[in-house]
């Protein structure tokens, strides 16, 4: 391995990105003001991790990703990927990272899929043996074999996504960045992509950083979750920690023998929904469901029950809501990423 293999693969220390935005103020006058898209990010990603990077639109996700790949130059702070400064060593770094932008393909529209891979091979100067092995592995796991001779314009969205994923991995990148990798895919394609990513991470040790709106991606793939809001890291930890941090509530769903008025008088729980004989009770995530069940069973004709964990979407929304006090003035959002 090359330089930087000892420390963490990705290192951010107080990284900032400030955009200057000109806004019209009157007929000709324009006011300039600064927008902090990324405001003092500090985190590290060791080799071999799979990290989910969450945040609403305009939170600074894309800006971070663009700084990590060297497309954008940080306005402040220190940033290292594989021992390199991405902005200064962009061309060298490009050979060591893989990037998939969910909404944007790098494949050649009018040419067979295999031709795009041949371009990657030549442009990245991939040794033929490495190229053959990687292509064979990816096409097998992603089911691309029969598609290699098909012009990219004839591929479905899911097939193209898998094609892009392969293109990003042919040169054995040390880290793979994925921006919304499962957006717009059908259930089968999503499952294939997720299985593939898990395999890539566990078998080959490739570090993966992914942004997504699909929280199933996070639940199924990432041990570590980072949540960013208004350019700041508001959470960094595992899923269980996120649940605790957000004060999430678990839900107890009970099926009673017949329709009854909302259950009450059960300490630590409150009924949030009633639908015929079925009722939903919310209780704090830290508590056990057993005493609740016992209390209900003692007084009500209980037929069936299940416990639901809070979904991440709700957790993240809760985190944002609680970060509200520290938020900058409204209208100060980061510019929409292109």
């Amino acid at each position, binding site marked *: 391995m*090359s330089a930087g293999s000892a420390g963490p693969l990705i290192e951010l220390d107080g990284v900032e990105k400030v955009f200057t935005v000109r806004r019209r103020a009157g007929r000709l006058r324009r006011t300039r003001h600064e927008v902090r898209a990324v405001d003092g990010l500090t985190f590290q990603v060791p080799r071999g991790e799979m990290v989910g990077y969450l945040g609403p639109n305009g939170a600074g996700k894309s800006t971070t990703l*663009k700084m990590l790949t060297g497309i954008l130059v940080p306005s402040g702070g220190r940033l290292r990927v594989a021992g390199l400064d991405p902005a200064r060593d962009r*061309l*060298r770094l490009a050979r060591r990272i893989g990037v998939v932008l969910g909404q944007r393909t790098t494949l050649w529209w009018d040419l067979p899929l295999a*031709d795009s891979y041949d371009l990657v091979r030549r*442009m990245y100067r991939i040794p033929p043996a490495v190229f053959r092995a990687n292509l064979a592995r990816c096409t097998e796991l992603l089911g691309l074999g029969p598609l290699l001779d098909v012009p990219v314009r004839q591929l479905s969205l899911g097939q193209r996504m898998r094609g892009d994923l392969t293109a990003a991995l042919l040169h054995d990148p040390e880290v793979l960045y994925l921006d919304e990798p499962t957006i717009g895919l059908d259930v089968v394609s999503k499952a294939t992509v997720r299985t593939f990513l898990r395999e890539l991470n566990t078998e080959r040790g490739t570090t993966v950083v992914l942004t997504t709106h699909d929280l199933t991606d996070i639940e199924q793939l990432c041990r570590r979750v980072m949540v960013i809001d208004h350019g700041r890291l508001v959470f960094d930890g595992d899923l269980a920690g996120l649940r605790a941090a957000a004060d999430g509530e678990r839900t107890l769903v009970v099926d009673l023998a017949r329709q009854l008025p909302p259950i009450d008088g059960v300490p630590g729980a409150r009924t949030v929904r009633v639908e015929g004989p079925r009722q939903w009770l919310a209780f704090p995530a830290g508590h056990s469901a057993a005493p609740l069940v016992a209390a209900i069973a003692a007084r009500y004709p209980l037929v069936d029950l299940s416990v639901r964990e809070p979904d991440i979407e709700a957790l993240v929304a809760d985190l944002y809501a609680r970060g509200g006090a520290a938020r900058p003035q409204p209208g100060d959002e980061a510019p929409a990423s*292109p």
Partner: protein
Amino acid sequence: MADRPGGRLPVLRDALTGYALLAWMQVRSALAYRTSFVLMALGNFAASGLDFAAIALMFAHVRALGGYALPEVAFLYGTGSLALGLADLLVGSLERLGARIRDGTLDTLLLRPAPVWAQLAADRFALRRLGRVVQGLLVLVWSTGHLDVDWTPGRVLMVPLMTVCGAVIFGAVFTAGAAFQFWAQDAAELQNALTYGGNALLRYPPTVFARDLVRSVTFIVPLAFVNWLPALWLLGRPYPLGLPGWTAFLSPAVAALMGAGAALAWRHGLRAYRSTGS
């Protein structure tokens, strides 16, 4: 993969590799629509051919234009078209920078291990642009056969030299114009006015234009060094602004200066893009 040592040479290699690969992919993409490709190539050739036909037609009615006979005007036309044609073929796609910034696809180029300038220059590489080159070359060859000049080795050498310098000068204008689009994304017309518009100027002798116009294309945007100054030396004509004879040999220096200036502008623009985003 192992790191290669940094420095100028690997970057140059990356640039050439990237350019050649992307240009080749473009040609193959164009060939995916074979009929359309053939029609475009023919149309392009015919369109630039009609261009010169218009001038030839003019000479059916007049014997000279600004004191220049048809072979002389054809020589100006041929050298100018050839220089612009080469620049347009090789780096004309740079004008698509603004579009790429607007739709956000410039970022995908920044992720590849090749300089963005080379990638963008090959972005819409199209063989149909050979039409102007071939046509310029044909007119140039015809004119050299009909010119009344003494073809000394110096004069013979001047033809390829001024072509290359002219192509570099136009290439620099394409590059500088594209660099300007880092700030103003819809400014492609500005460079088009200088390149295609400039070429329309250069195909006629300077004597037919107002002195102020001649002055500005000599001193401000020095397109006169593409063909007017060297060609007039070759044809044994005086330059209307009374410049000394040796200025005809300044084309390489002008080309080098403009190239360096354009490179600076490009670097500056790319840096501005990468530090502001879009």
